[in-house]
């Protein structure tokens, strides 16, 4: 498997306050990586660092063996797609128009989208399961349909790496399953590297192959999800004193921890 992202001792501070403190991990093709940790542990900032949007204050993120900050913007957008947790859209773009924007990095600045771009967008709308929403305004959709639209936009970039920031945080269980199924399929059969920041521990433990666990001021674990998503690690990352509460609420994780 080709290594897509290699993060080496990445550090980042906002105005002198450390937000990401020394994170190490690697993401390969076909990997489905869960990034978890308490609020303020730097998960979202980490996504912005490995996607090249922010520059780390120390350490580096490599993409296909080259520093991610050294790529031209358009080339980077053909390799990495990012789905933010919430995106306010002030105007009523149609779903088709939103997804078509994902083809942007393939179009030269003086040109228009081509027929081939339209065909690709229609393919992706079918693949994501929302071909009927094509002409609907993005602001008329349910949260789940809206999230699928922005995942479709990211897929229209035909990326090697898909980064998602809390894609299911305010969705009902039906859409949560639908989105995790889709992401797992993109990784296993699509060959994409997928990294998800999420608080849905139960879903992550069912679908993710690898886990990166952060806490404020450091990294708790990086490795196989089966081993990492254990009661002990979660109690440590989130600062939960009563480990028994994890045993009651997420029993499968505790059992897994014992096995490891």
């Amino acid at each position, binding site marked *: 498997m080709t290594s897509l992202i290699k993060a080496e001792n990445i550090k980042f501070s906002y105005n002198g306050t450390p937000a990401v403190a020394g994170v190490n991990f690697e993401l390969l093709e076909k990997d489905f990586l869960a990034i978890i940790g308490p609020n303020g542990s730097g998960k979202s900032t980490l996504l912005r660092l490995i*996607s090249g*949007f922010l520059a780390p204050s120390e350490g580096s993120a490599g993409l296909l063996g080259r520093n991610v900050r050294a790529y031209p*913007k*358009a080339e*980077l*957008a*053909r390799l*990495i*797609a*990012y789905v*933010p947790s919430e*995106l*306010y*859209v*002030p*105007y*009523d*773009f*149609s779903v088709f*128009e939103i997804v078509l*924007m*994902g083809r*942007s*990095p393939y*179009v030269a*600045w*003086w040109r*228009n*989208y081509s027929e081939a771009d339209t065909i690709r967008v229609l393919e992706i709308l079918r693949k994501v399961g929302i071909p009927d929403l094509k002409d609907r305004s993005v602001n008329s959709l349910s949260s789940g349909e809206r999230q699928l639209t922005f995942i479709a936009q990211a897929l229209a*970039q035909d990326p090697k790496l898909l980064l998602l920031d809390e894609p299911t945080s305010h969705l009902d269980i039906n859409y949560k399953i639908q989105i995790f199924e889709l992401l797992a399929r993109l990784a296993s059969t699509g060959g994409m590297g997928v990294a998800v920041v999420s608080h849905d521990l139960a879903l992550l433990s069912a679908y993710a192959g690898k886990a990166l666990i952060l806490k404020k001021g450091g990294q708790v674990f990086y490795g196989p999800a089966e081993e990492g998503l254990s009661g002990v690690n979660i109690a440590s990352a989130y600062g939960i004193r009563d480990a028994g509460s994890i045993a009651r609420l997420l029993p499968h994780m505790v059992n897994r921890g014992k096995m490891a």
Partner: protein
Amino acid sequence: MNNNRKMVWLVPAVLAAAAAALFFGAVKNAGPDIIWGLRLPRILAAAVVGAGLGFSGSVFQGLLKNPLSDPYILGTSAGAMAGAVLCSALGIGRAEPLFYVVVFTGAFLATFLTYSLAKIKNHPSVAHLVLAGVAVSTFLTALIMLFMTLYREHSLSLVYFLLGGFFPADNSLLAVSGGIVAGAVGAGAMLWRYLDIFSLGEEKASYLGADPDMIRLAFFALASLATAAAVALAGTVGFVGLIVPHILRLVFGASHRRLLVSSALGGALFLILADAVARTAAAPVEIPVGVITAVFGAPFFIWLLRRTAGEG
């Protein structure tokens, strides 16, 4: 009817409004010299100014992901005005090329100043941008007023300019401004894709492969050019750039593929009609057209403000 076909109808609508406006005026049964010599250049000026402001408004609203933007609110018009007043102080005539350079520079710098003041975090919020625009406009207007108080000999011609209107429609100015607006709209029509992705915010646009600094610079320049060309002809006419794109979005959809050009055409249509009202409503007294647009525009702005409050 699809949206592209609907857009074609804007052209005959503008022409029909212009033709009808030829026969509106303070003088009943006007002769050919009034119709062709006075009214036609004035209608053309209204079309150029409306097109420039409508285009600039749609550019700012997309680029800044901010429905409350237009050249008047962001201080672009005030910057252009300050440039024009500076020219008046330095004795640079309106027909000189340097006049346009100074007016454009004023528009561009004022826009960037507003943007920089509003940009506290990653992306300026809707409210911060409007407040910064008010601050920049108020400051520049104060400088203009100060100048007018100190140099009274210039102030009468500047008062008309400040109110916004088409009193001295000079043909060479008309041609230069028309050319600049046409060029800016043409360039915008080629780069429309970037305004679509900037409507999702600068961060998302960056993830879609655009260089935010470069795109912002290019569109600030285009919108400042079009606004400067409009201000050079007619002073500060407010709210055209705010109202027109919002109405046309309802008809043609949000994508800038159609919105930029249709906002230019719609702005021309709107200002031709507003100017016809300005000339006839209180005849023989002429109402400055900026007063007409503000009477419609300010309530519209308040309605938009209430609708978008708390978002973005």
